[in-house]
């Protein structure tokens, strides 16, 4: 039972970053804009969270530092989401390529800044005030469930709240109705008086900041610093979670948990004797292989919002 509880606990640790990033993906893609820049938003989020926290604790802010780090990640990443919005909305560039530009630019500029700020170092200084796991009083004392679900990083609990909020906004409020309409039929939304491109821009900015929290989570929990390999591919896994979850925040949440589970499995399995004969790379490969297999055989054809990837040009109504 302990093993299973540990496995589940580990699942949520890995899943948290993916939950944030895939929610960011859902917010953007639901309005009809492809978001291949998730990886870049996460890199930017991890970088800025580490930097903000580092300077905050240097300034003696102590325990508040990582919280400022989260805020810093959301604000700093507006630069990159702004670039994506500018290219794909204002200049109607290919949204896939715009996303790739964001990824390249986020990676190169953050490493450049790390070198600039820390005299050529390849990584930021280790942060002391990272997040520590919270144990929810009483609930965490419940056998099995306590360890599995109620002992986690604060970011994990924040992620749950975000899932609810995004779901609520998307399906229960006028704003969500407009966002979904813009993703399905921008022409209809436009003639109904919805500012299509303004709403898309807003979604890209908000989605980018939410995805940045995913990167921040990695830097402020598992890694305690930011380096070139802090974010390596999680953004793309999150994108797969968006598709796997059929562009629904709750679905993306489920998919993120699934991928988190595959990651956690890797760490849990290597402890055992029987696993020692299997090359560790097999377990590294597992999340990607499972993702591919799931998308190939379990999800079926899912096409997402009808207007996904099409720039909206009011002149061609």
């Amino acid at each position, binding site marked *: 039972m302990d093993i299973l509880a540990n496995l589940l606990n580990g699942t949520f640790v890995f899943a948290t970053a993916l939950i944030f990033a895939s929610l960011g993906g859902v917010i953007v893609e639901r309005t009809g804009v492809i978001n*291949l820049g998730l990886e870049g938003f996460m890199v930017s989020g991890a970088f800025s969270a580490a930097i903000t926290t580092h300077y905050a604790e240097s300034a003696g802010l102590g325990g508040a530092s990582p919280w400022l780090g989260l805020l810093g990640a959301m604000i700093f990443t507006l630069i990159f989401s702004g*670039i994506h919005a*500018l*290219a794909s909305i*204002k*200049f*109607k*560039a*290919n949204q*896939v*390529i*715009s996303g*790739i*530009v964001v990824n*390249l*630019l986020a*990676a*190169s*500029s953050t*490493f*450049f800044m790390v*070198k*600039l700020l820390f005299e*050529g170092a390849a990584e930021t200084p280790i942060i002391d005030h990272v997040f520590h796991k919270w144990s929810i009083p009483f609930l965490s004392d419940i056998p099995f469930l306590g360890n599995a679900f109620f002992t986690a990083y604060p970011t994990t609990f924040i992620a749950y709240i975000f899932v609810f909020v995004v779901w609520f906004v998307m399906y229960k409020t006028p704003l969500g109705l407009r966002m979904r309409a813009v993703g399905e039929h921008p022409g209809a939304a436009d003639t109904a008086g919805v500012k299509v491109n303004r709403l898309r821009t807003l979604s890209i900015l908000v989605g980018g900041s939410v995805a940045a929290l995913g990167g921040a989570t990695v830097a402020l929990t598992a890694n305690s610093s930011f380096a070139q*390999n802090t974010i*390596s*591919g999680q953004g*793309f896994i999150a*994108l*797969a979670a968006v*598709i796997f979850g059929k562009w629904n925040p709750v679905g993306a949440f489920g998919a993120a948990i699934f991928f988190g589970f595959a990651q956690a499995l890797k760490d849990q399995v290597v402890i055992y004797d029987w696993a020692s004969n299997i*090359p560790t*790379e*097999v377990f*590294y*490969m597992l999340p*990607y*292989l499972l*993702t*591919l297999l799931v*998308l*190939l*055989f379990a999800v*079926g*054809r899912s096409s997402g919002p009808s207007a996904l990837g099409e720039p909206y040009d009011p002149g061609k109504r």
Partner: protein
Amino acid sequence: MNNLKRLLRQESVWIPIISIVIGIVIGAIVMLIGGYDPLLAYSSLVQKIFGSVYDVGETLRQIVPLILAGLAVAIAFRGGMFNIGVEGQIVMGSLGALMVGNMIDLPPIIHGIVAIIVGALFGGIWGALVAIFKVKRGLNEVISCIMLNWIALYISHITIKAFMAEAGTSRSQMIHDSASIQIQWLSDLFNGARIHWGFFIVIFILIGYYYYMNRTKWGYELRAVGYNKHAAEYAGMNVSSIAIRTFFISGAIGGLIGTFEVLGVFKYMAIAANTSGTGFDGIAVALLGMNSALGVFLSSTLFGALYYGAQGMSFGADVPPEVIKMVISIIIFFAAAPGAIRMFIKMFKRKSKREEG
């Protein structure tokens, strides 16, 4: 002269040029902000490229994989598809070439040829998988490419560790000398720059790409599918098999990148935590080169030179080479969003008008 003027008036010519200029200028501004000397940086970059015969040879060596990566992306682009999986195809090509080069004994020349063919085949099959997933299961190629990139990386690690591990290092054993495609006398001529037969094969592939696109039946079908899939279907073309064929060719070109690197440059394969990134560079090359053979050649020459020269920049002016990656991403941004350039020009024209009047 008039021809030149007409040429320069075409958007497909001046947009890439202006993008490059903007990229370099913004790079300089970034360096200034960072407290570096951009003039020194760029001049040491140029010096590095042309510094010696060796450097020229090594710059060329850097360009070869970029040409191939650009063509691999471009051919898929022309067919209306997006090959973001060149990374994985490179890995599979390397692995195929390495296995033949290391695990099999064959006479010289034949050994190299067989290794090249197997490397291309490995990459081609890996690429074809993407198209098969797309046409059979409706899986978006961007997602499957990304997954296949990582899977390829770990397959290569597992295979190398199982069969060709070089104890105490994080790389494979060397290939046999018989499988090397390095051209020794040319390398000697370039003071030891790693020059190999791939240089010449690439030229053939460039010309072949042009002919394939513009003169062959398969190229015609590919373009028809890329422009209008529905019309291609109506015209009796088998869109699915064209997609698979195209991704196979694209993957095979990608596979050749890894093949040449293993057989002609490094002679082994490293166990690296990440893929090389050359495949992503290919997207930039194809985009800036507008998917044409000449354009790909020119843009990969530029990027190859920038990459190689970046080493000189960090050596001569202490500038981190990431600046060059930023310059390249800015170039792609503007090449992909010509609207941004048009806006720039409009602002510029208005300003100069105001100043005149």
